[in-house]
């Protein structure tokens, strides 16, 4: 009986398989770029600031004003179909000359592509730390943007509920992952503890139990349809 699929021996590559890409085999800079980068250049000429290929991954620096249109297009266009937003985060470099970067990691499952979008926010004191929210395109951006706001203080314009997510809401020492934030916080330990203990955990959250019947109206349409049909969910 022949095996229906090639047997893979652990620790040994299949005879004709290409060698897996490891960082050692990739050039630091340069190499083939993600075809979406050229498509973006053709579509939004001025919106794309520059394209870099680093360790085989494509970084596209885009204009802040065009970001929402670019993400929308990447999500909707049938030749792109970036249907999965894997992360929204930010980077601040130690060098004060370097701008603060907001980073979006997009993945196209149908085309198996990965694209990293970056928006640069110069730290000149005049630029507002504001970028458009992509929540209306990817609902999963909700908590990612809240976390980015909590840690870096970047405001996502258009986010429906932009408040702290990791630190408690009354926390006002600043934004912990910024370079000007001291590791141990701004206040003394006793003051930090006093403020933490003063926070009421129940201030915004209901501790009451919620049944599915009560939450039914808040469920997404598809899930309501399934539940109404008596179908089991999640299988």
């Amino acid at each position, binding site marked *: 009986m022949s095996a229906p699929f090639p047997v893979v021996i652990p620790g040994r590559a299949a005879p004709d398989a290409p060698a897996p890409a490891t960082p050692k085999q990739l050039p630091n800079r340069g190499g083939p770029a993600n075809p979406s980068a050229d498509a973006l250049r053709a579509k939004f000429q001025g919106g794309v600031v520059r394209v870099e290929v680093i360790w085989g991954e494509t970084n596209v620096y885009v204009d802040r004003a065009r970001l929402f249109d670019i993400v929308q297009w990447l999500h909707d266009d049938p030749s792109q179909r970036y249907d999965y937003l894997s992360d929204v985060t930010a980077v601040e470099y130690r060098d004060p000359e370097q701008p603060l970067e907001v980073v979006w990691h997009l993945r196209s499952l149908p085309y198996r592509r990965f694209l990293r979008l970056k928006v640069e926010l110069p730290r000149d004191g005049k630029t507002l730390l504001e970028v458009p929210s992509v929540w209306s395109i990817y609902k999963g951006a909700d908590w990612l943007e809240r976390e980015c706001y909590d840690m870096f203080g970047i405001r996502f314009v258009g986010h429906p509920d932009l408040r702290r997510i990791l630190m*408690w809401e009354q926390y006002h020492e600043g934004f912990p992952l910024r370079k000007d934030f001291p590791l141990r916080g701004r206040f003394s330990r*006793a003051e930090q503890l006093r403020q933490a203990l003063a926070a009421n*955990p129940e201030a915004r959250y209901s501790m009451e139990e919620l049944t599915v019947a009560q939450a039914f109206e808040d469920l997404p349409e598809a899930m309501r349809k399934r539940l109404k049909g008596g179908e089991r969910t999640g299988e």
Partner: protein
Amino acid sequence: MGLTARPSDNLARTDTTPGSGESWVATRLDFLVNWGRAGSLWPMPFGTACCAIEFMATAASRFDLARFGMERMSFSPRQADVLICAGRVPFKLAPVLRRIWLQMPQPKWCISMGACASSGGMFDNYAVVQGIDTIIPVDVYVPGCPPRPEGLLYGILMLQEKVKRERMSDTSLRNEMDPDPKSGLYIPPQAIDELSEPFGNSVHQTRSGL
């Protein structure tokens, strides 16, 4: 605090000398009550990190916490005797831990398990409480990162020994500590700053008073 000989290990010994204020009946009753309490401590596991894994191992069959009368994990603080805080406590969890402690009925004890719960451990940063003794009173500290189950068992045995030494006539035992209404803290802010003073080359922080 150097190494000193332990007090007499005859735990059943009772001091009935005239003038000590304790009658034979009271001391015998103490012995009975303490024996019962020490042998049936119900732990409230407050596991927040890797120490909780070691705590689970302690409760499982190989180390078998049930040998010491602790097989009944009390996941409700209202039926618990010992709060075992296993793992680091972030500031966001501080009011929760305080409330759980207040919900536990007397008599109650607390074991701080591991370096993070006892002192903040390596997490000397903006988010982590530098020792849960700044929030709630602690009876036994178990060092280690994380402590092995034997370490936790040793801490539990120490707590049992402590329970067995309690006296009914000791009025300081069952005091519910009231936090200072202004700061909400049990111990003065200066003491907290002193306790969490950075070691080594950590960045020096402003003291209380801002």
